[in-house]
């Protein structure tokens, strides 16, 4: 099938997909590590559960936000890119 269409549009689509996908790798590893370590901590000291959970959620939001920076930049490339 011969390809047709605008190269600009294709590049924008690629930017959105690749930017979001690659941007999700790092935070994915980070969130997994964070929750795994929390589970480890709780299993060592179950009485610290409440405190660790609060810290975990703080870290979760901070880590997760990085995905959204990537998403935002991909949106910028997709919608405002020339």
């Amino acid at each position, binding site marked *: 099938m011969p390809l047709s269409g605008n190269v600009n549009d294709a590049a924008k689509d690629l930017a959105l997909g690749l930017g979001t996908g690659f941007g999700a790798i790092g935070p994915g590893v980070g969130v997994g590590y964070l929750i795994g370590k929390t589970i480890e901590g709780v299993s060592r000291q179950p009485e610290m559960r409440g405190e660790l959970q*609060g810290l975990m*959620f*703080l870290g*979760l*939001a*901070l880590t*997760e*936000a990085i995905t*959204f*920076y990537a*998403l*935002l930049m991909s949106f910028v490339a997709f919608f405002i890119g020339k």
Partner: protein
Amino acid sequence: MTRRLSWLLSTALLALALPAQALAASAPKTDPTKEFLLDPWIKIPKLGPIDLSITKGVFYLFLSTAILLIGALLVVRHLRLHPKRLQAFVEIIYDFSETQIGRASLPAKTYTTWFPYLATLFLFIWINNMISYLPLPVDTEHKLWGVIPTPSFYAATSNISVTLALTLITFFASHYVGIKHNGVGPYFKSWFPPVSGAINILIVPLEILSQFLRLVSLSVRLFANMLAGHLLVLMCVSLIIIIGNVFVAAASIPVAVFFYCFELVLVANLQAFIFALLSGIYIGTAAEPHH
């Protein structure tokens, strides 16, 4: 029983949001990102560069403010020593914001001044996030029977101008607190670690930049989380129309329900909490710098 009821309720709510996209089926394409366009409902002439027209986002802000005001007045009018439902609920929220946000982030000397700000911030963002997941008749582009706007989602907090405005208040408040409690010189000196020599060329611009990057990180975190959450649910639903096959619904609706519950239960609450907590941490560390 109550759990099953809440599941049913959320599914029904989601089903209510369907017509907005389903009606677009007559058009060859549907685009969930169009839900985030803000066309003016009531046009107000521009004041220079500032457009004060009433849009969907402004409506959501007014709605959340009204809910907060009316709720607060209702609770305060009939205060009981043994609280009933509404009062007990509000007391839980107050207790949470006091122990988890206020005491956790603010030092004692700034607590009484700035805890009300943090609690207001938390409640405002929280209510905004909560009502953003209710299907309300706000989609004026498509009308049911030509009159009623179709129910749809929108979050005021999924607009960068709302979150940036809230962030700017925190930004200026933290510097005001820092200057007030430490004086101008010591406060700005406290931004930088006590090192001397050539390494300062590297560190000084970096530390100044990090102060301003807070503006980006705090506002974009809330805005992008809410935008992505809404877009995800809308995209799952409109996949049926984009692919053009009804049987896609069998897969995409459960996924949409799952993400809806995930966003409503975890993300919407967490982001309101994080925004208030980080605001508190910024104000608290400005009042008592560590180095």
